[in-house]
């Protein structure tokens, strides 16, 4: 009788308690930091070497008197839940690049294969040039819109040979064009900064670029420029969760030497 009552008391499915705890804890943390962010508390993003290298790359172009190229890859339609955020982050970074270019007077060429992202890109560039007090230097011709993967690739490779850009930014959601463009840029000796959250393209960007933003770093870099309190708040929340996990792993790692299953049993709850 008592046993039956106990069974009725259980409302959480066995083995899923810990998952629920993680879920709720994450949500609380996300919410708290989003709230604080909206209240005006600043959440810093750590120094990311690729971001710090952007002015260097643009300075290099200014010295050499050559243009700078930016492209977000073909994978991301803005409506796609996995690729879209990458492109949005990339466009935020483009805003920063554009301001630096406007400051130094370097020519910027944007190759944009995603039709849905076109209006936003134009708006971002216009705002950036306006903010630097050089609205007359912005022209929609800076954005080269090419649909389809192979025409896009052909156009970019042709551009590399013709204009020999000093610095390339390959930041966004990529498919295999990352290999081809990374190689093309390397062959003309360009300084390259890459970034993507698509694991399948990361190795190619690492092998061909001087600096790379990996996975979440891309979103963090984007948010550090757009100052979006929602994204920054969530990032801080994620970080706290990661630190908790790290602490658990350190404890568990040490307990492992004593062969104590205490923590493992807790996690299996």
């Amino acid at each position, binding site marked *: 009788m008592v046993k039956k009552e106990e069974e009725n008391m259980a409302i959480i499915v066995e083995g899923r308690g810990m998952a629920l705890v993680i879920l709720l804890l994450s949500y609380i943390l996300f919410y708290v930091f989003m709230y604080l962010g909206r209240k005006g508390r600043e959440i810093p993003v750590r120094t990311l070497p690729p971001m710090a290298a952007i002015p260097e790359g643009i300075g290099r172009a200014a010295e050499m008197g050559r243009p700078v190229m930016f492209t977000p890859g073909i994978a991301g339609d803005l409506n796609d839940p996995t690729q879209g955020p990458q492109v949005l982050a990339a466009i935020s970074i483009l805003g920063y690049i554009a301001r630096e270019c406007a400051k130094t007077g370097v020519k910027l060429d944007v190759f944009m294969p995603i039709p849905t992202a076109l209006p936003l890109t134009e708006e971002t560039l216009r705002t950036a040039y306006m903010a630097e007090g050089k609205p007359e230097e912005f022209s929609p011709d800076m954005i080269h819109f090419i649909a389809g993967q192979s025409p896009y690739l052909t156009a970019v490779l042709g551009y590399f040979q013709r204009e020999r850009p000093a610095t390339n930014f390959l930041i966004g959601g990529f498919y295999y064009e990352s290999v081809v463009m990374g*190689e093309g840029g390397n*062959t003309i000796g360009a300084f390259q900064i890459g970034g993507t959250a698509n694991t*399948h393209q990361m190795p190619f960007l690492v092998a061909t670029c001087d600096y790379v933003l990996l996975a979440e770093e891309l979103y963090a870099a984007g948010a550090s420029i757009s100052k979006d309190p929602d994204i920054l708040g969530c990032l801080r929340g994620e970080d706290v969760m990661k630190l908790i996990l790290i602490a658990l792993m350190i404890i568990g790692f040490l307990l492992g030497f004593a062969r104590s299953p205490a923590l493992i049993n807790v996690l299996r709850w």
Partner: protein
Amino acid sequence: MSEEELTFWEKLARIDRRVFYWILFIGLMIPFIRPIMFPISISPSTRDLYEGIKEMVEPGDVVVMNIAFGVSAWPECMPAFVSCAKLFIREGAKIIIWGSYYDVDLTYEELLRRAKEDFAKLKYGEDYVYLGYYPNMEASVAQLGSSIRSIFSTDKYGTPLDELPMMKNVDKATDIKLVVSGDTGDCCDYYIRQWRIPYGVPVAEIGIAMLGSSYMPFYKSGVLFGMSVGVRGGAELEKLIGEPGEATIRMGAINISHILVIIAVVLANIGYFASRGKRR
């Protein structure tokens, strides 16, 4: 002299990329004319897949083979998938085949063709069924776990599931012994999240080689009971079931192409350091 060396490397770096494409394409053909065979060792993940199936599947058990790869990935995924089907048939399993890639019909027909002798012993409806296509999304896979009939009320050919003898008492994930998913994308993730975790159904993966990396932590943590990595996994499975086939032959081409890639990387880096050392 050192200046000459510099120009030599520079010259090498300027070779037109098409030269490499031709070298590769022609090089890949050689093993198909004159086979290059070396012994293949079995990796732990493939062995676990093979032994897991042998251990778990009893005659009469119902298993699912999920086709989440397209016609375009046949050279990579098909050999392992076919070997796995053969293994199931030898173990006496009843097989449900369905898929989440829109050209799944063709892959199914090719599977029957390649394992013709094995499937000839079976009777459609009693020993295996083909349910056809479902959309590649998490909700569909989750719903297949709760009730197969809510997604597939009939088989591919319009026969209601209740009229198929082997499907009579099969409707939920708990009625399924195990799932083998052939993937190019993330469909196996859905089976892990919606079948393995909630219902405890063992899941194994037959994927393109890159998934061998991304799913390795799942295999290591026991979420996947086994894993076949690309065409290499196919060759290993062919060796394990004792029927060397397409993948085994293809390993010759893998040898040639991999050696070419290694030579390219090594040459590139020698050139890079030689010219960089000079510049200093």
